[in-house]
């Protein structure tokens, strides 16, 4: 599946930085072997066929009953998530998803493990305003894929000598805010960088403030409103990012303003059209053999 292929592409960098990588599922070894050889996966894909380890972690999906989805090994799957362990096997960080179809992209895992700033790996779109403010938008992956959580990266450059206010600024000021609009996307919680407190003695006010470069990260996922398993998909997805802000210097403020960047991102299929096809094939094979409907 797509996440494993993306993880393979970041495994060398993880390893160079002192982190080993493991993936665990309740797949039998045989399935993992076929998948690894087909997609060149070299990091350990561990087979927890009886879900012993998944149960010992307490993360087995309890909503699936033993008699459900037997043909596809549904019973015994884990809730999808990632543990970031230190060298002693202690949890340093973790990331879990409520929906079984969701998963962190390879570059999201890499950035989280290394504590790195996430990098833009897509084409970017930019808007430069007359006063020198620049809004640049990119994505952590070259393309979006169904339910893979990528990161939307918005870089706001504030001209020298100017600043903008962050959330929590006194009411008189308009803090920077972002609005992302488009069909078929789901957004996570916006992550703002730390701001600096600016004291204005003449106003007897202190306001959280951004200077220079502001990088805002928003988890972004393309949903099945746009991509459906087993259907043709559109080449790209369009959305817009609107930044609202107010620029000030030491003595005066401009009026609040807005800038919108139109973004187009390629859409790619998951590395699993065969996932669905495998499902179809296995269901058909079992039905033919047993003469019963197994769905």
């Amino acid at each position, binding site marked *: *599946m797509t996440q494993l292929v993306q993880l393979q592409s970041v495994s060398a960098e993880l390893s160079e930085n*002192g*982190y*080993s*990588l*493991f*993936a*665990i*599922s*309740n*797949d039998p*070894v045989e*399935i*993992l*072997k076929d*998948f690894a050889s087909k997609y060149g*996966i070299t990091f*350990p894909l*561990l087979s927890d066929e009886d879900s012993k380890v*998944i149960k*010992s972690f*307490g*993360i087995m*999906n309890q909503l*699936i009953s033993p008699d*459900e*989805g037997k043909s*596809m*090994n549904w019973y015994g*799957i884990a*809730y*999808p*998530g990632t*543990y970031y*362990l*230190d*060298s002693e*096997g202690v*949890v*340093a*960080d*973790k990331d*879990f998803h*409520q*929906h*079984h*179809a969701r*998963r962190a992209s390879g570059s999201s*895992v890499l950035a989280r*493990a290394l504590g790195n700033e996430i990098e833009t790996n897509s084409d970017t779109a930019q808007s430069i305003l007359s006063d020198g403010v620049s809004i640049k938008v990119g994505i952590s992956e070259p393309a979006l894929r169904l339910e893979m959580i990528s990161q939307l990266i918005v870089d706001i450059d504030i001209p020298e000598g100017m600043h903008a206010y962050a959330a929590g600024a006194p009411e008189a000021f308009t803090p920077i805010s972002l609005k992302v609009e488009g069909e078929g996307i789901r957004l996570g919680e916006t992550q703002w960088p730390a701001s600096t407190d600016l004291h204005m003695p003449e106003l007897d006010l202190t306001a959280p403030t951004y200077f220079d470069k502001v990088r805002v990260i928003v988890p972004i996922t393309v*949903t*099945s*409103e746009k991509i*459906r*398993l*087993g259907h043709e998909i559109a080449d790209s997805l369009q959305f817009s990012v609107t930044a609202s802000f107010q620029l000030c210097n030491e003595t005066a403020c401009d009026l609040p303003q807005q800038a919108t960047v139109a973004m187009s991102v390629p859409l790619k299929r998951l590395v699993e059209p*065969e*996932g*669905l*096809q495998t499902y179809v094939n296995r269901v058909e094979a079992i039905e033919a053999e047993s003469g019963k409907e197994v769905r």
Partner: protein
Amino acid sequence: MLMSEQVNEYYDEFGFYSPQEITRGTRRQPDADFNTGPEIGETVPKILLPDQTGNLVNVQQNLGSLGGVVVFHRSALW
């Protein structure tokens, strides 16, 4: 013919589409505060499992100098 053409189409409350009825266990989602296993600062249980070549791998004994990333996923087939 694709499965999605054979069966009804279902979107769940998260907007996810799958060719299975949303009432099935395989499509139900846990509550927002579902169990996500060992917390930050806790030691994880021992992991000793066969890899794709059939060799037993002891995760704790193969952590890198700084640590390791352990990803629990649905299946290689999905």
